[in-house]
């Protein structure tokens, strides 16, 4: 009886030895993987690339920790689980940073679109104010072409913005603003040069 008991205890010991391995935290891994993918889908790799890069690195590190634990006789996934929890939190933070940056960029672009539109309208008014007829018409034609280029760019920026390309639209609208500002300066300069002495034809001339 005693021997049977010893055998049973030994068998249980062996069984416990081999069955004591903890289970891979697959649920946590899947959740973290999905969270990282969600962050990527939010455009974080474009809008907050450094934060996104750190997140991806942490996810890889967590996966490595899982395998390190799995490689042991007696796996202990607590470190991996902790890191996966950190990854989840990082994912939430990175996504919110990306969203905030997008909102910020959209506001910047929208504001600049308004500014450039106003500059373009102002420039058109300056062109209209300039004496017509022979006086400067040809010179202003080139400037009007420049205004058209700036207006076309604004239209392109609006299309980019509608497609969610905030970075592309931001760069483009900055260039359009530069151009519109330069046109404004050029027009003011031309008008100043023209001065108050612009002659008024007293009679029609044939030349």
């Amino acid at each position, binding site marked *: 009886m005693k*021997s049977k008991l*010893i*055998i049973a205890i*030994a068998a249980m010991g*062996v069984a416990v030895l081999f069955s004591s391995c903890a289970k891979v935290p697959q649920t946590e891994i899947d959740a973290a993987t999905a969270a990282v993918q969600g962050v990527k889908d939010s455009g974080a790799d474009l809008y907050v690339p450094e934060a996104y*890069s750190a997140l991806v*690195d942490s996810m*890889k*590190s967590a*996966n*490595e920790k899982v*395998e*390190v634990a*799995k*490689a042991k*006789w007696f796996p202990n996934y607590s470190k991996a689980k902790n890191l996966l929890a950190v990854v989840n939190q990082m994912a939430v933070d990175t996504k919110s940073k990306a969203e905030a940056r997008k909102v910020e960029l959209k506001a910047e672009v929208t504001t600049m679109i308004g500014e450039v539109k106003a500059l373009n309208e102002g420039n058109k008014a300056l062109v209209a104010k300039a004496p017509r007829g*022979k*006086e*400067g*018409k*040809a*010179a202003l*034609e*080139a400037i009007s*072409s*420049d205004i*058209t*280029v*700036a207006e076309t*760019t604004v239209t392109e920026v609006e299309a980019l913005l509608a497609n969610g390309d905030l970075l592309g639209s931001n*760069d*483009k609208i*900055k*260039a*359009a603003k*530069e*151009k519109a500002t330069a046109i404004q300066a050029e027009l003011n300069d*031309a008008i100043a*040069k*023209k001065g108050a*002495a*612009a*002659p*008024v*034809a*007293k009679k029609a*001339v*044939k*030349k």
Partner: protein
Amino acid sequence: MGLNKKSGIKWLIIVLFSVFIVTMTISVIIVSQKILPTEDLRLAREALTIAKEAEANIYSEQDYKESIRLYDSAMLNWKRENDRFILFRDYSRIVANAKSSKKKAEEASDEAIKKSANLNLNVEAAFVVLAKKIELYNKLFKDLPLPKSVFDAHNKSKMFLSESKIAHESGKLKDAEILFKKAEVYVNHANVAAGKMLRDYFVDHPNWLHLANDAIAASRGGNKVILVDKVAHILYVYQSGKAIRSYSAEFGPNWMAHKERTGDRATPEGNYHIASKKAGGSTTYHKAMLLDYPNAEDRIRFEAKKRKGLISRNAGIGNLIEIHGNGGKGFDWTIGCIGLKDRDIDDLYQLVGSGTRVTIVGSIESLSVVSEGVDF
């Protein structure tokens, strides 16, 4: 018998337990001898992060992708190996993949750094070249009566250059390169078209030179002669073979053409004379000197073109070409006259009288001098 059986079982247990202990000990020794790929994978991962920071995904795309593939492959193999019985696990392939991934990532980083540095230099150099081309346009072509398509192209090139510079400042070199190339296409189009126009115009240079030399020669007797250089936008007064005055001059928007008919806004080229002088209420342009355009040559040319149908039957040859004031606007604004600043017309008005010869040429200098040797 019973005692023997008990003793046998006891020994069996001892033997089995000993075998188990020995097996376990050997297993632990074997497992402990196996090197986990942890460190190699960590190094590979760090190398990948550095490569990403160096934008290897952009500048060394293939190597970077390969390094990622090797890392992923190492991780997949590690998972597979870990699913096997502990004694049968083999990490050698994982270690090899991790090492290869690290090596590729480092190569990708190095290549990316070199390529981005080169691209940065190329883009910066290209900005300089493009800026020179835009400067060339502004210097040589801006005031030419160019078709809309030409100055549209020039304006677009400036826009793309601005966008390219903004992309460059943001570190987006590839975008900067793409935008710069677009700018280059437009600026080249504008400069080639404008350059052709200028070259075509200078075909008449030998004739202009002849006219200019003749005018200067005519001043050698002490007479004052006015010589107008349209390209230089300068009106000279010559006396005794020397330029005694020079004034900035402005013309009509279509100045780069010889006047042929009413309303073409061109300034004539050839030999003319001051027909009359106007001041006070007789001119709206401060002071003016009427030229005797059209001359006999102009009339012959006009009639010949009319006969050929090159000029409308109803068109007139035009008249009332003057040298007058109200100039200094900085662009060509007249209907074909020669506009001077008021203080310059005051001076000229005092200096020359009716009958003074006025020779108007496209350019005294040759095209290579005008373009300062710049190739366009």
